[in-house]
């Protein structure tokens, strides 16, 4: 399986390690009044879609950047990859 690294081109998936759902980047505010409830959801509740899934991959044996990879969990087709810090900038706006 090849992951299209946005800076380095196609790289073997064995160079990467997998973290999980890309929504993990949106960490709740620990100082909010309902922080306990929001952290419960953040830590324990995940969507488990059969189909398109955005997930975090770490280029451990490479440039050590975090990527957001869009993958189809049914076919394992990789539909795209972007740097997590770019995705985060886009998501925060």
């Amino acid at each position, binding site marked *: 399986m090849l992951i299209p690294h946005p*800076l380095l081109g196609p790289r*073997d998936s*064995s160079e990467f390690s997998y973290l999980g759902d890309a929504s993990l980047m949106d960490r709740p505010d620990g100082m909010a009044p309902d922080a306990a409830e929001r952290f419960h959801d953040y830590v324990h509740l995940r969507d488990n879609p059969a189909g398109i899934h955005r997930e975090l991959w770490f280029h451990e044996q*490479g*440039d050590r950047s975090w990527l957001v990879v869009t993958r189809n969990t049914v076919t394992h087709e990789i539909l795209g990859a972007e740097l997590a810090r770019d995705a985060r900038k886009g998501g925060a706006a």
Partner: protein
Amino acid sequence: MPDLQPTCALGAPKPKTARFGVLTVTENANLALASVALRRDAGAPDLPLPGPGEWIEAEDIAVFWIGPDQWMVEGHGRAADDFAHAIAHRALGCSVTEQTDGFAAFEITSDAGAEPIRALLEKLVNVEAHCFTAGQATRTGFHHMSVFVIRRADDRLAVLGMRSAAGTIWHALTETAGRLEVTA
């Protein structure tokens, strides 16, 4: 005064070298290394800054890209100097870290042009060998470790890995180069 003797990464007082047909593998004990990382609000360093996957040789140093906003600076023959200190003066406001003693460097040269180097790349590392031309550098997996691979020229390749694994890297390089000699 204690009688201290500097030791190379492979444990001998002198760097090791081995020859396999047209390929020569040599331990490079004189390579100084320092990493440079940009800070969020700081200016750019006074250094050549190659793009992703690239290596540039400048007058007294060479630089390769190691990650977003991060580079490794090489000083040939300067392992005994305070290299990171010298680089820090050229990278004000950046994070500069001494890396010389963390790595062991191996230089591979070919007497028969690019082809033996390409054959070695195909055996050793997970990069597309025909695209990995002079001026390219990357970090990739190598015998269950990770190493930096630099194509310094068509007939020259460098492998930089963890100093504590120098013996394992040497074994992998010499074993593979030796097998290529048999099949050539």
